[in-house]
């Protein structure tokens, strides 16, 4: 529980003076993500910059320092019957909210509850000039100025060090139930999308190993009535399955084979690939395990209305994120320049050209 922002600011100013690059690190549980970190860069650690700054349960808003662990945040929320309903993945106990936003990571409920990016209302950010800036706010609606807060989602720290985050929190669902049934992969995309198109309290739709899993959560009466109508068996320990997806502890994610993430249109046909696949987010997020060529997978992701990234493993010295057209590269390079004119933060971590 400490405000380390002044020390962080000083470190940035000194790095700027000495032309020293900086790797921003929170809990260090996402080191495997992005391209290989610059080995000559110094660590800018947010791990001690922790604490809940403000929490008003009836406002559904919480403000925390970026180094605060997800586990601590969720514990505080649970005491008030609330949660982070974007279900942040944790790759270790030390996972922080700052890292979660920088990597834009959300769990299985994401299509229905929104992502971490969707819930962010405001941030404080240390830019490359060592200025401690505040954007957005601690209210649900705020359209004054550009949305710099959400711009950070997926930027992987290339624009600065996020120091504080205000976000929307939600009540814990009153009840939950998981339905499971056998279904071949060829049928599941259509099935999941049809279910997602019904006005029912669905908060999960995934497929793995020949089985489709649907989760219902909300008012007990609504969950039970829907389960009656829909096919599938009620799964004991259903919540444990969703936790395995959320934190990527499911067997599918084990082992060293490269893990690819397709973020595509929910109804796109499955890419024709040999090897294990796991479908989540009612078809919008599809995981693939296996050695593959980035360019080839990009050519599959594009007609599917989306992108591919090498999430974990494989060659991380080359690009691991989907190709960006030149005009968008230029905008992102200039944005980087505007926040971090000396290119201090996370050089080459997101793209080789950034």
């Amino acid at each position, binding site marked *: 529980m400490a405000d380390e922002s002044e020390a962080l600011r000083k470190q940035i100013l000194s790095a700027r003076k000495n032309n020293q690059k900086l790797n921003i690190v929170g809990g260090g549980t996402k080191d495997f993500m992005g391209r290989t970190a610059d080995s000559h860069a110094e660590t800018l650690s947010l791990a001690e910059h922790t604490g809940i700054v403000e929490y008003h349960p009836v406002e559904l808003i919480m403000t925390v320092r970026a180094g605060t662990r997800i586990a601590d945040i969720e514990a505080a929320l649970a005491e008030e019957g609330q949660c982070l309903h974007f279900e942040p993945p944790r790759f270790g106990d030390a996972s922080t909210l700052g890292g979660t936003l920088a990597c834009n990571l959300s769990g299985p409920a994401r299509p229905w509850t929104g992502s971490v990016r969707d819930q962010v209302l405001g941030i404080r950010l240390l830019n490359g000039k060592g200025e401690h800036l505040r954007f957005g706010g601690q209210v649900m609606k705020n359209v004054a100025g550009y*949305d710099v807060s959400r711009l950070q989602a997926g930027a992987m720290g290339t624009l600065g060090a996020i120091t504080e985050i205000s976000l929307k929190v939600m009540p814990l669902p009153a009840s939950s139930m998981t339905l499971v049934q056998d279904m071949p992969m060829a049928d599941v995309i259509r099935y999941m999308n049809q279910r997602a198109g019904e006005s029912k309290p669905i908060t999960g739709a995934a497929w793995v190993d020949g089985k489709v899993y649907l989760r219902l959560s909300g008012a007990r009466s609504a969950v039970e009535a829907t389960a009656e109508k829909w096919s599938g068996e009620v799964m004991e320990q259903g919540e444990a399955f969703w936790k395995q997806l959320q934190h990527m502890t499911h067997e599918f994610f084990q082992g060293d084979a490269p893990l690819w993430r397709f973020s595509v249109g*929910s109804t796109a046909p499955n890419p024709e690939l040999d090897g294990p696949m796991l479908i989540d987010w009612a078809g919008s997020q599809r995981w693939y395990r296996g050695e593959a060529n980035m360019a080839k997978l990009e050519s599959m992701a594009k007609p599917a209305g989306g992108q591919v990234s090498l999430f974990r493993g494989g060659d991380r010295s080359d690009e691991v994120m989907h190709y960006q057209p030149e005009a968008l590269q230029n905008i992102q390079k200039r944005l980087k320049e505007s926040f971090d004119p000396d290119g201090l933060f996370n050089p080459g971590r997101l793209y080789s050209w950034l």
Partner: protein
Amino acid sequence: MKTRPSISKAELAEKFRSFIDPDFVITDNETMKPYECDGMSMYCEMPMLVVLPETASQVQQVMRLCNEYRVPVVARGAGTGLSAGAMPHKEGVVLSLAKFNRILEVDPLARTARLQPGVRNLAISEEVAQHGLYYGPDPSSQIACTIGGNVAENSGGVHCLKYGLTVHNILSVEMITAEGDRVVVGNDALDGCGMDLLAVMTGSEGLLGIVTEVKVKLLPKPEVARVVMAGFDSVQKAGDAVGGIISAGIIPGGLEMMDGYAIVAADDFAQAGYPRDAKALLLCEVDGTVEEVQEHIEQAENLFRELGATSVKTSQSEEERALLWKGRKSAFPAVGRISPDYYCMDGTIPRRQLAHVLLEMEKMSEKFGLRVANVFHAGDGNLHPLILFDANVPGEFERTEAFGGSILNLCVEVGGCITGEHGVGVEKIRQMAVQFNDEELQQFHDLKVAFDPRGILNPGKGVPALKFCQEYRSLEYKQHDHDTVEVAHG
């Protein structure tokens, strides 16, 4: 950034006419007149010329020429904006997207629609209703406002708390950059690699690019929706009741509050059966499955009674639900009937500050000698004070502006912000200096340069030049210090 066009009006018009139907390159004052303002009609300016392209490649050519000759470009949808964001630049071009009015594709299974930017907000929901779907954000102007304008303003509506703003309900935009590149930001998926440029485009008020296509998410229509109306004898009690609903774990589809003034005006207008003696009225709509709505409506009714509601009534039919909403949705024109003019403000506050803010506003109302009615998106803290005035009384609009400015400053003071959904535009540009410091404002300017190196897109809106900020802050400080508002504002 100041730009100085290096081309004459006649030369530019001639160039436009070489690739755009000459009837839609407008240069005469009479035909340009309707473009002099948007929904914020107190702020007017005549543009150099108005152009209405009909294809994205024509927009590209317009942008390339304007970028080359440093001509300011103000994009315009339906012109319903309430912050003068689409007010023309006198040396610039108004680029109307009115001809981009087609729904290009609806995919019922994927629950998406691909739209041209000039498609009206309500037309989307009307078109997809046959598939049991609708588009979430529903600003009050939804009959007229367009999806392109919704993207520019990050529009909300009465269902934001549960269904989010425009930024939560779009997948991608095709846009033409200031330099004339045609790019797609976002995709059919729920996220993409790299910085979230879609988020920064949304709500950027036409300062970063010209949107030529929008792909939106559609939602399944709830099985049922019902409204509980509760009257209270104080604003404080109504505010507590809102907190009570949230604490019970209910997220209403809509949760609206009106004060005494607004209740009577709206009821006169709509005959909605509102409790006219109440000091505050809550409309709490619960939507979802039949079972869920039943469960939550009962909870809400009980809660309101426990928390001191003087009247509680629940809609028993669709007609009744529509009538209860009619009052709220017509609150602006209703208030318009009891005053020659009204000025609609748009601050956002933490909900717990509501009673304090309304009390302070009452004091200001006395001080400025102007009446104020309040409608409030209670679920998300977005306050819409309507200041009643008469533009024909000399000095009254200036006093209204000063009153409005003081309300926005108060919003910032209590931890809120100067605009929840109407945008900054010209109208609130001075208050930006209250919400942000110089370093933050400079960062906004630098961000714009990344998209628009020559500063041709909607210059002078959204983010104030730093040299004006110091002056405004010191003026405001003086005002607070001496409590002599009228004097400080001259």
